[in-house]
Each structure stands twice: as C-alpha cells, then as structure tokens.
C-alpha cells in the first residue's frame, strides 16, 4: 500500500447519513475479478441517469446534474465529507477501491461502519471520525466556499481548514503506523509465524475435532 503522510486537497460534501456500500458501488460491478477500474462507477446509481453495466463506456453515459460530485466546482476533490454510519452494509472492499480510484484520499464523517473502516485503512484510504458538530461546520464551509480545501496530516493527526483552524482526530496507533509506512500487513503477521504455529499446535491438542 502507498504511504500516507500529509495530503491537502479539494473537498466535496456528501450531505447524507447512512451512505451504504450498495450505493458506493452497486453489485453489478462486483463481478469483476480485478482490483482496479471501479472509479468510474463510484456512486453509479446517483451519478448517472441511465443504468450502469460492467462493460459500458462510462464517458458516454448521461450524468445526473443534481448529484453533488457532478458539479464542476467539486471536480478533482480528494476529501469527502459525509454524515454518520458511512459505509454501512456489505463487506465489499470494492467500496474503498472505488472511492480511491475516483480520487478520494480521505473521508470525514461522524462514524463509519466497522468492516468498511478496516477495509479502507488497509488500502490506505484514511477515514477520519469527527464530532457531528465539526462535520456540520466542514459541510457548511465546503458548500459556502468554492475551492474549499483541507490539509490532512496523519503524522500529527490533524485536519486544517483554509483559515488555519485545526481539528485533531484519533486513530489506532497500529493502523497509523501501517499507513505511514505503507506496510504490508501479511508480511508483518508472518514475522510471527512461529507464534502462530505454537498456538495452532496447542489448539489442535485441545480441540482436535477442528483439525479432523
């Protein structure tokens, strides 16, 4: 995974609660056996007026002018701000892949669903939890100010607004370390292979039927 240290970018507001993973990337795109190519189908049912299928040329499809990401001022956004319980629903990792491949590097919301949270951080998509009041403020400022940008600093665990106001966020130290260094989780775990084998041998002795 790519290292994440400090990133600064244009912000887009997605002012709704409970954005589920079916909305982030609809099921027909999960038929892919690849890890890439999901960006054009991010929020497919909200973003386009027609019905999306995996083999379509997305550049020719009619866009929904009412959908926020289709407004010119948010083109090139790298930070998404949304409401509570973002990413609820399915375990599809295609959701963080689609957000990332569209161009988002960070998502800010009051709360995130558990599986989505893990999936995102594993891919280097930073999810930042803020108090609903701060999220409210960020949504308001984004909507009021064209070209509104935020600076996200993982090392310092801060998000800074254009007028210098800074908000601190929490993140698990292990996850932070992995993101800052771009670690491969599997490699880290395999460094403990001996401990896993020791556990496994004991487990087999205690519950032999699990290995029968």
């Amino acid at each position: 995974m790519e290292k994440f240290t400090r990133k600064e970018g244009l912000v887009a507001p997605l002012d709704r609660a409970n954005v589920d993973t079916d909305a982030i990337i609809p099921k027909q795109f999960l038929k892919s056996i690849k890890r890439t190519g999901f960006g054009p189908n991010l929020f497919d049912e909200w973003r386009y007026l027609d019905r999306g299928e995996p083999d379509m040329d997305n550049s020719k499809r009619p866009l929904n002018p009412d959908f926020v990401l289709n407004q010119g001022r948010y083109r090139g956004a790298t930070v998404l701000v949304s409401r509570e319980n973002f990413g609820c629903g399915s375990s599809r990792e295609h959701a963080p892949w689609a957000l990332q491949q569209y161009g988002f590097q960070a998502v800010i919301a009051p709360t995130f669903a558990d599986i989505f949270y893990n999936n995102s951080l594993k891919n280097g998509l930073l999810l930042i939890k803020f108090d609903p009041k701060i999220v409210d403020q960020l949504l308001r400022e984004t909507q009021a100010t064209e070209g509104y940008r935020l600076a996200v600093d993982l090392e310092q665990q801060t998000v800074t607004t254009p007028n210098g106001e800074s908000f601190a966020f929490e993140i698990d130290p292990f996850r932070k370390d992995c993101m800052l260094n771009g670690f491969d989780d599997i490699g880290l775990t395999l460094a403990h292979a001996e401990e896993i084998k020791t556990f496994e041998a004991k487990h087999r002795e205690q519950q032999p039927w699990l290995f029968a």
Partner: protein
Amino acid sequence: MARTLYDKLWDGHVVREEPGGTALIYIDRHLVHEVTSPQAYEGLALAGRKPWRVDSVVATADHNTPTKDWDKGIQDPVSRLQVETLDDNMKKFGAKVYFPFLDKRQGIVHVIGPENGATLPGMTVVCGDSHTSTHGAFGALAFGIGTSEVEHVLATQCMVMKKSKTMHVVVDGKLPTGVTAKDVTLAVIGRIGSGGGTGYAIEYAGEAIRGLSMEGRMTLCNMAIEAGARTGLVAVDDKTIAYLEGRMFAPKGKHWEQAVAYWRTLKTDEGAKFDKVVTLRAEDITPQVTWGTNPQMVAPVDSKVPDPAQERDPIQREWMERALKYMALAPNTPITAIQLDKIFIGSCTNARIEDLRAAAQVVEGKRVASNIKLAMVVPGSGLVKEQAESEGLDKVFTAAGFEWRQPGCSMCLGMNDDQLSPGERCASTSNRNFEGRQGAGGRTHLVSPAMAAAAAIAGHFVDIRSFK
C-alpha cells in the same frame, strides 16, 4: 472473573497481543465464495504465498449463479468468469471442500456452513461477506471481512483485530403467534438503529431467544450486521448440539463427546458485565415491515408509514424524506395498504427449511393475487431444496402460483438475472432494503417468510396474526 461468551471465544483465539490492544486472532473456519475471493487469491499468488491451512477453507459459488435453466450453465459471461475463477482457484490452492455450481450441496455460503456441520461452536469463522454474523447462532465467533482480510487469513490463518465492546440484547417472555425471529431482529434494529451496534459484538439472550430454533437463531444473528455489529452470538444449548449431531463435518465418536463437553461451557457466566444492555419484551413485538431504504426504517404491520414532519432532528428528517421519495410512499399510509409487484422468499436470512415450511403453510390451497407479477421461492441450498421437495412443499408453492427455483443468493442482491425492474415493489425475506439492492430503482420491503407469503396471496401487506 465472570466472562461473557464473547470474552471466552476471544480469549481462546488470541495468538499474541500488542500493547495498544491490537491482537492476532487465530481463524478456524474460512468460508469462501466467488465475489470477494478472486483478488485475494491473485494477491496470494503474486506474493508467492500459499494458504496456511487448506483444510480450514469451505467454498461455494452462490452470488452469481442462476436459479433456473441450470442445464444451460451461466449465461452472463462476466458472472461465468467469476465463478470459473473460483473453480480455478480451488483447483490451484485447494480447500477442505468445495461445493461448485450444479453440486447437490451447493447453496448460499451461510446456509451450507451450518447444514454441513462446517460451522461449529467455539470456532472463529470468517468469510468475505458481512452476513457471516449468521454463524454466531452456534456460539461461534463469526464476522465478515473484506478481500484484503481474506488474503490475510489465507496467508496467515489469522486476523489482525481489536476486541469489540459487548452488547447484551435480552428478549424476555414468549413471542406471540405469528411473530418470528425475523420480526425480533428487525425490532432490535428499529430500536438501536442501523449504526447502534457499531463497535459491538451482540449476544442475544432471554427466554424468547432460547425458545427459537437454530434456524430462527441464524435469522436473528444474520441481521446483527444490519445493526452495525460485525458479530451476533447465541449461547450453546441442547438445541445447538441436537442440530449438529450427524452432520457431514460434525465431530464423530470420541471427538463428539469431547466437543460436546467443551461446547457446553460456551455461555456467558453469571454476573459477567456487558458494555451495554438492551431489553425487549417479547409480548410487545409485532410482525415487522420495513418502509424505507435502510433496515432501521421499520414499523409494525398494524401501523402507518411514519411522517417525517414529526421528526425533530433535521438530518433524520431529510433522510426519511429521501427514503419515502425513493419508495414512492406517502406519510401516514397504512402499511397494509401497500400494494406489491413481486414476492421474494429466499436469502441467507430466510431460506432454510423451516422458513419454507412457514411460507408453504400460509399459501397452501390458495392462489397468488393477480397483481403480483412474480412470486418466487429460492431455497438456501441444494439440501434445503431436496428436503422441501421430499415434504411436497415445492408442489404447494407451484400450485399457488409461485416459481420454485434452484438455490443461490438470487434476488437478495440481484447479481444474476433475478432482479426488480425500476419502480417495482417487492416483499422480500432478505436482509437489505438499500436503494437499488434488488435491482436499480427497485423498492424492497423486508418481512418474515409467513408475512411475504401472505402478502403474495393478498397482493398487499396483511397482518399474519389475523390472516385466514
């Protein structure tokens, strides 16, 4: 110290723990299906790694498979490629068992695990699928994972995770006639909200839960994730043990005795503390129907579609308004006045034998209403289908005007041909009513199997408690 069931399962699988509380947890059972595994196997191969323990893997193809014309194979080339990729990966990497498309034991991954005894009490069970919470019905620590985690478990037999908080959902008393596990699980989600269980492992307990069959407990735990909880749990009891005895992969002989003795310890100790307790009275629970685009948007069948104008929180109000617009429902419409186009009885929530029996009992000797364009029953697995046919349930359904299909996920998410068309309204026994879940523009109402069956006959929702 008194421990909860979750504590016991967690403690029994910690390989090592970091100072911040991040732990390596050993995984006993890894369920695999075609949608979330191809990129994981590819990653494994690219890194030159092998599965750590092949015999922990149990696999099937379920999400993309068609539910009719099996002799024609999988027509959609994109779906076919995904299923064939799983076939290839199984050949290349191996598994304890693989139930491929067309196999007699093929079916929805969360149905085949338990029915073959591949899910056992005390196990850690993972699958690249959020409804893995289903398996917690057996007193197993089960949770859904993403594709990177699938690869991680394949390569290391472990998960990197932090312990969850615990929530005790206690349902006291006896459930009234006509009220099922589906109604209990929907009522709980309605109470705590679709994010209310985030960060928690939920243990369901109380007289009403003890009274549920294993099928009912699976329905209950299946939807723990719809309350945000990755894990749902029910303690082991005689029913758990009776259900497992003699199943294909259940322990045999001396191992069986040994296992049962251990399984009986899998319950929360007297006096153990939970981080949160939610109590419901079984007598208060009614047949539930969802009216919106999230399982939390649920109401008793004898009530009305809520009015956003009554909601004080502006974010909630906006969310309700958006949902009602999508669902094309006016506030204050009686739930029983909602007319339907399609009926879907299936999914890992409600496609086990007991669910089909409950639905068949309702439709026996009756006819599907003329406004219903399609009413379908999709058994959860080949074994469920076989059992249902041996009881003549298929005949009951087809005589009433239902289509009797081959097993799979089907219209729960519509990755195959079974989908709603834009604007169509469906009574569904599945678990998600998100926008577009059953097909772009489709409108889903989640209900129990008996409620779906009764709605098929009436053409609109009816209160199963007074349905004749």
